[in-house]
C-alpha cells in the first residue's frame, strides 16, 4: 500500500475540492453548464462532522465534472476504493423529455439503469426547454416532470427538480443546492464511516509486527483530506492530531533502528510550516517515515489548518512546545546530525513560527487574555531563538561581544554544548584565521565596570569549551587536556585574565599562547589538543557547512551583522514580552538592549533602558540583580552629564546591601557623591537620600514641652555612607500629627560629621505650637547639594530590604502642651497695710509643674507707691498650707526653709535657683504715700474711709522659662490704711463750759496696736480745760487695741478765745496725735514698718505717730427756748379721731434785749403739718405770750385729726422768730407717729 504514496500525493495536489458528477443524459450540459457553475462555490452548506453533528460551512468549493470526463473514467476500481475521497460526492442526472411516451419507453429505463447503482448519491434535474409563451409545450413538460417525480422521488427523499431554460423558477437554485448538499452529506457520511472502520481495523493492529504506519497514514490523511475538502477543518485537524499521537507512539516501537533524517541539504532550515517541503515518498522508510521530516510535516499540516481556522495563537502555542520537544529529539540524534544542526534548526523554526503567526495575527480579534498569551509566546519564541543564536555566536568566537549578564548566563550556562560525535577540526587552510582569532582573544580587554567594580563575570558556558571540544576528539586523551589548561585557566572559562592572575602571569600566558600559535606547531593539530582559537575557527567552518540559509549565515559572518541580528531578536523578544503579562522578562531584555546601545555610544537610549531595569529590580528589592545593573546606569548618566541622575544612582548604590560591594567600591561611590556635591553644579537638584540616611527619634517617651518653650531634640541618624561624611547643614522638619500643617524646622547650625552607622544629633528646638509632633523630613547640604531623606529607621540600621518603607511612625517625638498656667503670683497679705509706713508686701510665686529657674521678676509700682530701696527684698520658701500666723516674722521656722536676700536691679529681681520648683514668697519693702491727713469723723457711727483712697497697685511681670520666653503678668491690688479711724463726740457739756470730748479709735488693721501716748493739738477757739497739756484724761497708757476693735480717749476741752487776727495762721483743725506701736504679722496685714524690723528682736518696738484731724465746732449761741413735745394719749391715734398735740415752750434764760428783736413777751409759733395727713383745727400760726423771765413756760396745744392710717410725720411746732440755734428740743418730738385705721362701725352690726 505504501506504493500508493506517490499516487496519493499526486491526487492530493490535483484535487482539493468536492466533485459532483454530471450524467448528461440528454446532452444538455453545454446549455446549462454556465448557469450551474455560477453557483460555485456554494455560499453556505450544511454538512455533518465526524460526530454527525451538523456544521455550517461557507464557500464550499466544488466542481461539476461530466461522467464522460477522462478524470472520472480512467480509474481502476481498486484505486477508486482507496482514494475514495476524490470520487464524486453527488451525481446529477440531467434529462429532458417532451413527450410522455418517449419518457416511458426510452428515458425511464435508461434512468433506472443509471440510478440502480446504490453507491452513488444521485438526483435528477429535469430541464424544460419549453418557452413560457408556448402553453402546449409547458403543459407537456409539466406532465413529464410530474411523471418523473412519481417514478423517482419517494416520500423520504426528493430526487427531482425542474429547471426552465427560459427563466428558471425562483426556488430552483435552492432546490438544486439542497439536493446537492443532501447528496454530498450522505456521501460524506458514508465515506467517513468507511474510513473510520478501516482506520479502526488498522489501529487495532498497531502493536503487531505487521503494522505498517504508511497504510495507516494514507487512510488517516485521506480522511483528514476529505474533511479539509469539505471545509471541516476542525475534523481534519483532529485527524492530524491523532495521526501525530499515533506516530509518536509507534515511531520507535519494536526496537527498529530507523533513520532520523535531517541529513539532507537544507534540513537545517525548519520546515515546520511548509508541508510540501519534501515529498513524502522521500522520507518514507520501510513501513514508516523518518522522524525529522515527518514530524515537521505533521506540524505543518496542523498549522495550515489552524491558520485556515484563523487561529494563529494556537499555532504559536502548539509551536513552542513542538520546537522544544523537537529540539530534544534533535539532541538525541545530535551525533549523526551536522554540527550545531539543532541550534540552527531551532533558530529557523522560531523565526518561521514568529513570522507566520504574527503576519496571520490580527489584534483585537481575540480575548485580551489570549492576546497577552500570544505575545508571551512570541516573546518566548524570540528569546529561545536568541539563546540559540547566542550559542552559535559564542562558538564562532563572538563570546566577547556577549554581555555576561544574568539573563544571558542563565540561559547559556545551563544550555549544554553541542555534542557532535567528533568536534570539527580546523581546515587545513585556516591558519590565518586561527591567528586572527588568537589575536582577537588576546585583544579582549576585560571590561572594567564603572567605579572600578570588579566582579567575576558570570559564566556563559556550561563547561569549559576547550575541554569539551577536545574531549570530543577521539585522538585526544584526557590526561593531555589537563596539562593543556594549566597555562591558561582564565581564558578557558572565559573570564578575563587580569582579574585572576597577576600581570606577570598574564605575560606568561600570552607568550605561552604565542608559542602555541606558531605555524610550526600547527601541523600536528590532530594529535595535540586544540586551542580555543582553533576550536572557534573549526566551529565557524563547521557552522558554515551546516547553515544553508544564506541570510543566517551572513548574520554570523561579522560582528556587526551578528549584533544586528542579536538586537533584532532581543528587541523582538522584549517588545513582545512587554505586550504580555511577562513584564519582567521584557524589562530584563531591555537591559540587554541597553548594553548594546551603551557599547555603541548610544548612552541616552542605554540610560533609559537601564533605568527601567533598575526600577524593576529596585521596586521589588532584588538588590543582587540591581547591584549588577546600577553601575552601568550610573556610568551612562555620568557620560551624559546627568548629574542628578548620577548622584541618585550613587546614592542608590551606597544604599544597597553592604555585602554587595566591597568597602573600596562603596568608598568610590561616596567620593563621587562628595566630589560632585562640592563641584559647581549647573542645576542643583535635591537629592533623595532616604535610603542612605535614615533617622529616628530617641526611644522612650517623647520630649514634652510647655507651650512657647524652646528645647533641644536629640535625633538618631543612621548613615549608610562607608566613611565619615560632612554635612554642611542639617535640618529636620517636624510634622504635627493631627493637622496638616508642617511643624517647625529644626536646624543644626554647624557642619555635622556623620560617622558610618549610628549618630546622635541634637537640634535646638524653637518654640512650637501646641500639639504632638512626629519627625518629618531631614534635609541638608553636602557641599552645594541639597539632600532630603524621608526615611525613618525603626531604631536599627537601615536594613538591606528597607525598600518597603515602614509606615510612618506614629510615635510622637515631641509633645507641646496647650497653654496652661505655669506659675501663679498672688499677694500674700489678706488685709490692709499701714499707709505711709515702710511695709512688707508678700508675693507668693507658685510654679505649677514648671521650673522657674532663672526667672526674673519685674516690679512696677503704681502711683502713690514706692519700693523702699534701702532694704533688700527677702525671699523665702513657702509651705503649701496656709501659714499660721504663729511663726510670723521669722521665716526660718520650717525645717528646710530657704531664705535669700535679693536686691532690686532696674526694677527687677532674679530668682535664686532654689526657688525654681518650690513655692516661694517674696517680701518687698514698700511704702504707700498719702499726703492727706487722716480725718476723723464727728458722728457717733464710724465712717469708713473710702477704700479707693488706700488702694495701690503693683504690676508684676515674671519672665521665666528656658530662654525667658514665658511671661506672666499680674497686677496686684494692695490696700493701705491708717492704723486708726478716729471719730469724736462731745460726751458731755459740763456746766462750767468744759466739754468732754470722746475720741473713739477704730483699729483699721489686723494687728494689735498699742497706744503709748495721745495728745490733742487744739484748733483756735479751743483750749485744754484746766492745766491739761492736751493729754487725755485717762491715764491708762499704754492702751492696747486688738485688731478691728475700738478704744476710746476722753479729752476735756473748753472754749477759748478766738484770736481773730490770726485766723489765717491758726490751724483750722484740731490734730489728734497718737504715739503708738504695732505688733502684727506681715503675712496677715499691717505690721511694724520695715525699719522697725531690725529692732524688733530687741523688744523695743519703734513708736509710730498717727495724726488725725478733728473738726471741733464752736457753739455759737446758747439755747434760750426749749420746745418739748408732750406725750400723746396712750391709746394711740386713729384716723378720724381727734387728738390734741401739745408742746411746751420753756424759756431757758433771760432774753437779752439787744439780741432779740421783739420787745414784748410774745412768741410767734407756727404748726406745720402735711395737709394730706392731718387736718388741723384751730390756729396754726399765732403769738403766745411768754414771760421773758428764765423758767417761764407755756403749753401750745392744737387739735388735729389724722386723715390717713400709717406712719406719718406728726405736725411740728416751729418758732419762726427765733433762731434755731437758740432752740433746744427737749424732749424732742417723735419723728413718726403711728395712725391706726378707723375703728369699725360696730354699732350697726351688734346683734340686738
Amino acid at each position, binding site marked *: 500500500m505504501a506504493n500508493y504514496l506517490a499516487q496519493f500525493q499526486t491526487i492530493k495536489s490535483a484535487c482539493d475540492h468536492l466533485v459532483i458528477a454530471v450524467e448528461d443524459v440528454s446532452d444538455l450540459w453545454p446549455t446549462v453548464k454556465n448557469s450551474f457553475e455560477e453557483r460555485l462555490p456554494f455560499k453556505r452548506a450544511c454538512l455533518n462532522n465526524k460526530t454527525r453533528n451538523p456544521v455550517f460551512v461557507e464557500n464550499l468549493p466544488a466542481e461539476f465534472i461530466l461522467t464522460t470526463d477522462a478524470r472520472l473514467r480512467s480509474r481502476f476500481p481498486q484505486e477508486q476504493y482507496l482514494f475514495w475521497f476524490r470520487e464524486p460526492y453527488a451525481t446529477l442526472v440531467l434529462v429532458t423529455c417532451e413527450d410522455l411516451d418517449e419518457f416511458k419507453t426510452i428515458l425511464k429505463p435508461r434512468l433506472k439503469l443509471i440510478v440502480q447503482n446504490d453507491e452513488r448519491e444521485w438526483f435528477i434535474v429535469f430541464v424544460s426547454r419549453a418557452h413560457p409563451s408556448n402553453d402546449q409545450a409547458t403543459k407537456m413538460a409539466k406532465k413529464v416532470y410530474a411523471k418523473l417525480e412519481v417514478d423517482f422521488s419517494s416520500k423520504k427523499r426528493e430526487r427531482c427538480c425542474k429547471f426552465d431554460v427560459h427563466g428558471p423558477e425562483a426556488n430552483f437554485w435552492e432546490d438544486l443546492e439542497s439536493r446537492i448538499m443532501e447528496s454530498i452529506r450522505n456521501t460524506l457520511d458514508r465515506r467517513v464511516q468507511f474510513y473510520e472502520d478501516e482506520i479502526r481495523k488498522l489501529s487495532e493492529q498497531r502493536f503487531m509486527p505487521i503494522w505498517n504506519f504508511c497504510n495507516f497514514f494514507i487512510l488517516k490523511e485521506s480522511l483528514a483530506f476529505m474533511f479539509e475538502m469539505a471545509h471541516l477543518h476542525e475534523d481534519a485537524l483532529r485527524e492530524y492530531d491523532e495521526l501525530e499521537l499515533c506516530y509518536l507512539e509507534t515511531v520507535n516501537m519494536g526496537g527498529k533502528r530507523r533513520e532520523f533524517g535531517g541529513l539532507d541539504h537544507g534540513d537545517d532550515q525548519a520546515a515546520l510550516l511548509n508541508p510540501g517541503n519534501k515529498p513524502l515518498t522521500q522520507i518514507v522508510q520501510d513501513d514508516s517515515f523518518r522522524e525529522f521530516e515527518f514530524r515537521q510535516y505533521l506540524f505543518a499540516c496542523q498549522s495550515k489548518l489552524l491558520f485556515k481556522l484563523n487561529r494563529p495563537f494556537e499555532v504559536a502555542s502548539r509551536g513552542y512546545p513542538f520546537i522544544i520537544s523537537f529540539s530534544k529529539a534533535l539532541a538525541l540524534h545530535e551525533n549523526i546530525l551536522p554540527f550545531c544542526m539543532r541550534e540552527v534548526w531551532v533558530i529557523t523554526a522560531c523565526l518561521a513560527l514568529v513570522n507566520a503567526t504574527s503576519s496571520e495575527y490580527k489584534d483585537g480579534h481575540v480575548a485580551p487574555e489570549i492576546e497577552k498569551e500570544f505575545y508571551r509566546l512570541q516573546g518566548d519564541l524570540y528569546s529561545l531563538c536568541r539563546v540559540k543564536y547566542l550559542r552559535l555566536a559564542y562558538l564562532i568566537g563572538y563570546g566577547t561581544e556577549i554581555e555576561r549578564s544574568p539573563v544571558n548566563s542563565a540561559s547559556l550556562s545551563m*544550555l549544554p554544548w553541542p555534542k557532535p560525535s567528533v568536534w570539527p577540526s580546523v581546515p587545513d587552510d585556516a591558519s590565518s584565521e586561527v591567528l586572527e582569532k588568537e589575536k582577537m582573544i588576546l585583544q579582549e580587554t576585560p571590561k572594567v565596570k564603572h567605579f572600578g567594580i570588579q566582579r567575576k563575570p558570570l559564566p556563559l558556558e556550561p563547561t569549559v569549551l576547550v575541554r569539551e571540544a577536545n574531549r570530543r576528539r577521539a585522538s585526544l586523551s584526557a590526561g593531555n587536556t589537563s596539562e593543556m589548561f594549566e597555562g591558561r585557566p582564565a581564558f578557558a572559562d572565559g573570564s578575563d585574565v587580569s582579574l585572576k592572575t597577576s600581570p606577570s602571569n598574564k605575560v606568561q600566558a600570552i607568550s605561552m599562547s604565542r608559542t602555541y600559535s606558531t605555524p610550526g606547531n600547527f601541523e600536528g593539530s590532530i594529535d595535540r589538543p586544540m586551542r580555543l582559537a582553533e576550536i572557534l575557527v573549526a566551529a565557524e567552518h563547521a557552522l558554515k557547512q551546516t547553515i544553508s540559509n544564506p541570510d543566517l549565515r551572513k548574520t554570523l559572518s561579522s560582528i556587526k551583522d551578528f549584533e544586528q541580528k542579536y538586537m533584532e531578536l532581543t528587541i523582538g523578544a522584549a517588545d513582545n514580552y512587554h505586550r504580555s503579562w511577562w513584564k519582567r522578562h521584557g524589562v*530584563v531584555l531591555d537591559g540587554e538592549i541597553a548594553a548594546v546601545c551603551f557599547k555603541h555610544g548610544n548612552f541616552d537610549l542605554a540610560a533609559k533602558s537601564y533605568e527601567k531595569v533598575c526600577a524593576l529590580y529596585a521596586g521589588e528589592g532584588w538588590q543582587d540583580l540591581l547591584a549588577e545593573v546600577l553601575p552601568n546606569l550610573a556610568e551612562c548618566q555620568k557620560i551624559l552629564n546627568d548629574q542628578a541622575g548620577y548622584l541618585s544612582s550613587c546614592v542608590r548604590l551606597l544604599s544597597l546591601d553592604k555585602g554587595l560591594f566591597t568597602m573600596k567600591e562603596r568608598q568610590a561611590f561616596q567620593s563621587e557623591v562628595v566630589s560632585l556635591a562640592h563641584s559647581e553644579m549647573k542645576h542643583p537638584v535635591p537629592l533623595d537620600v532616604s535610603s542612605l540616611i535614615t533617622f529616628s527619634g530617641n526611644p522612650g517617651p517623647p520630649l514634652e514641652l510647655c507651650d512657647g518653650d524652646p528645647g533641644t531634640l536629640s535625633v538618631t541618624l543612621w548613615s549608610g555612607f562607608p566613611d565619615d561624611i560632612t554635612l554642611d547643614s542639617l535640618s529636620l522638619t517636624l510634622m504635627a500629627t493631627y493637622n496638616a500643617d508642617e511643624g517647625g524646622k529644626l536646624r543644626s547650625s554647624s557642619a555635622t560629621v556623620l560617622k558610618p552607622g549610628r549618630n546622635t544629633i541634637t537640634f535646638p528646638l524653637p518654640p512650637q505650637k501646641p500639639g504632638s509632633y512626629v519627625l518629618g523630613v531631614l534635609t541638608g547640604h553636602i557641599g552645594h547639594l541639597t539632600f532630603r531623606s524621608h526615611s525613618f529607621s525603626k531604631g536599627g540600621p537601615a536594613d538591606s530590604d528597607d525598600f518597603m518603607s515602614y509606615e510612618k511612625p506614629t510615635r510622637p517625638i515631641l509633645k507641646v502642651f496647650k497653654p496652661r498656667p505655669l506659675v501663679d503670683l498672688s499677694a500674700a497679705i489678706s488685709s490692709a497695710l499701714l499707709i505711709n509706713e515702710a511695709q512688707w508686701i508678700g508675693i507668693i510665686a507658685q510654679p505649677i509643674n514648671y521650673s522657674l529657674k532663672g526667672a526674673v521678676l519685674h516690679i512696677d509700682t503704681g502711683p502713690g507707691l514706692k519700693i523702699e530701696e534701702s532694704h533688700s527684698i527677702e525671699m523665702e520658701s513657702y509651705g503649701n498650707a496656709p501659714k499660721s500666723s504663729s511663726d510670723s516674722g521669722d521665716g526660718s521656722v520650717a525645717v528646710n526653709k530657704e531664705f535669700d536676700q535679693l536686691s532690686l536691679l532696674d526694677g527687677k529681681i532674679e530668682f535664686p535657683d532654689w526657688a525654681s520648683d518650690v513655692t516661694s514668697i517674696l517680701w518687698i519693702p514698700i511704702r504707700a504715700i498719702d499726703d492727706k491727713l487722716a480725718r476723723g469723723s464727728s458722728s457717733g457711727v464710724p465712717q469708713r474711709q473710702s477704700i479707693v483712697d488706700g488702694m495701690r497697685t503693683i504690676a508684676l511681670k515674671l519672665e521665666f522659662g528656658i530662654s525667658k520666653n514665658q511671661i506672666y503678668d499680674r497686677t496686684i491690688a494692695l490696700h493701705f490704711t491708717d492704723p486708726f479711724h478716729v471719730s469724736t463726740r462731745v460726751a458731755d457739756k459740763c456746766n462750767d463750759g468744759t466739754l468732754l470730748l470722746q475720741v473713739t479709735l477704730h483699729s483699721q488693721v489686723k494687728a494689735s496696736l498699742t497706744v503709748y501716748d495721745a495728745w490733742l493739738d487744739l484748733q483756735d477757739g479751743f483750749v485744754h480745760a484746766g492745766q491739761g497739756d492736751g493729754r487725755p484724761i485717762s491715764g491708762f497708757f499704754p492702751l492696747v487695741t486688738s485688731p478691728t476693735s475700738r478704744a476710746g480717749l476722753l479729752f476735756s476741752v473748753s472754749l477759748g478765745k478766738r484770736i481773730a487776727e490770726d485766723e489765717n495762721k491758726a490751724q483750722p483743725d484740731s490734730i489728734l496725735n497718737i504715739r503708738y506701736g504695732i505688733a502684727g504679722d506681715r503675712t496677715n496685714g499691717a505690721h511694724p514698718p520695715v525699719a522697725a524690723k531690725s529692732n524688733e528682736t530687741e523688744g523695743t518696738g519703734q513708736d509710730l505717730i498717727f495724726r488725725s484731724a478733728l473738726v471741733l465746732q464752736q457753739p455759737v449761741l446758747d439755747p434760750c427756748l426749749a420746745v418739748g413735745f408732750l406725750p400723746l394719749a396712750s391709746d394711740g391715734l386713729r384716723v378720724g379721731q381727734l387728738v390734741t398735740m401739745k408742746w411746751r415752750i420753756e424759756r431757758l434764760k433771760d432774753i437779752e434785749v439787744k439780741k432779740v428783736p421783739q420787745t414784748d413777751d410774745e412768741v410767734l409759733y407756727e404748726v406745720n403739718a402735711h395737709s394730706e395727713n392731718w387736718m388741723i383745727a384751730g390756729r396754726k400760726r399765732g403769738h403766745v405770750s411768754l414771760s421773758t423771765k428764765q423758767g417761764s413756760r407755756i403749753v401750745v396745744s392744737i387739735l388735729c385729726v389724722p386723715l390717713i392710717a400709717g406712719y406719718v410725720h406728726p405736725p411740728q411746732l416751729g418758732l419762726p422768730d427765733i433762731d434755731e440755734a437758740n432752740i433746744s428740743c427737749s424732749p424732742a418730738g417723735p419723728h413718726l407717729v403711728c395712725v391706726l385705721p378707723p375703728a369699725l362701725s360696730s354699732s350697726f352690726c351688734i346683734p340686738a
Partner: protein
Amino acid sequence: MIVCVAVVGHQNNPLYIQSFTDADDALKLHHIVHCSLDVVDERVNNPKRSGPTLNETFLGLLYPTENYKVYGYLTNTKVKFILVTTDLDVRDVDVRNFFKRFHAAYADAVSNPFHMPGKKITSRTFAERVSTIVKSFGFSSAG
C-alpha cells in the same frame, strides 16, 4: 539536581535565595527566580486560566525551558516558593512533597519571634534545614 530554592515575599521581594551550584553564578539564579515571578503573577492574576489549580498552593511547573525547570508554590499569605532544578524528569509528587516540607520549614522560621516579617530570613537553622530538604529531594518521596 536542585540548583536553587527561593522564598519570595508577597511584594515579590526576595526573602531567601539559596543556590546549590558550585560555580559563582548565584546571580543568574536570582534572575531565573525573579523572572519566574512573571509566571506566578500571571497565574494569580488570571484565575480563569489557572482553573482547577486556583485553590492549590502548588503552582506546578512554571517554566518549560529546555535545560532547567522552575516550580512554584504559593502560600496563603502570598509568599512564593520557587524551586529551580536541572533535573529534566522530575516527578510532580516529589516536588509537591519538597514544597510541603519547605513550607513547614519556612513557617517555623518566620514563627521565630526575632524574625521581622517581610524581612529576609537570616536564620541559620532554616538554611540548614533547607539544605537537608534539598539534599533529600527525590529520595524520600514518601516522607
